[in-house]
């Protein structure tokens, strides 16, 4: 799984795409039990961050999203923060 496609520069310097962290560490399975890892991919409101923010590859973004949802079900991560 390679790098994200280079975006065409929009009014300035070209956007350097960051490689997906899970690909970089060669993670085969995004575990819902690693809630501390998953916490990096939710906003401080508890919402799942967009791909352009997390800079994950499509496969891992999808896996991370399912894992976050599983973790929420088991009360490892909150559904909403501060309400």
């Amino acid at each position: 799984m390679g790098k994200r496609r280079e975006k065409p520069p929009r009014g300035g310097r070209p956007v350097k795409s960051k490689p997906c962290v899970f690909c970089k560490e060669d993670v085969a399975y995004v575990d819902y039990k690693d809630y501390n890892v998953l916490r990096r991919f939710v906003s401080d409101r508890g919402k799942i961050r967009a791909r352009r923010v997390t800079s994950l590859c499509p496969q891992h973004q999808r896996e991370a999203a399912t894992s976050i949802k599983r973790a929420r079900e088991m009360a490892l991560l909150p559904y909403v923060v501060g309400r």
Partner: protein
Amino acid sequence: MLIVIPELDEEQVGNTVGRFRTIIERTGGEAGEPNHWGRRKLAYEIDHRTDGFYVIMEFTAGERTLVELKRILRVSDDVLRHTIVKLPPSYAHKPLPEPEEVTA
């Protein structure tokens, strides 16, 4: 993974988990050693409870295991939540994060 109600003590939690182990084994599965995370704070309230005992167990399932196990987990009053997840064949056994202890 299952969450057991916080009203029980460690031993009763062990008994509860043991019950599920026998179910797995009776129905042709193989149950691994349960991994006790201990008492943990929940991310949100479930039935007015703020913490619970987390237990993780890996097992292989026989034909009837899942049907039976799910049915019994659902009717058990001392299990707050449970999930059964099919692990990929490449799943590596790595040490789990230290559970946050709650003094309650």
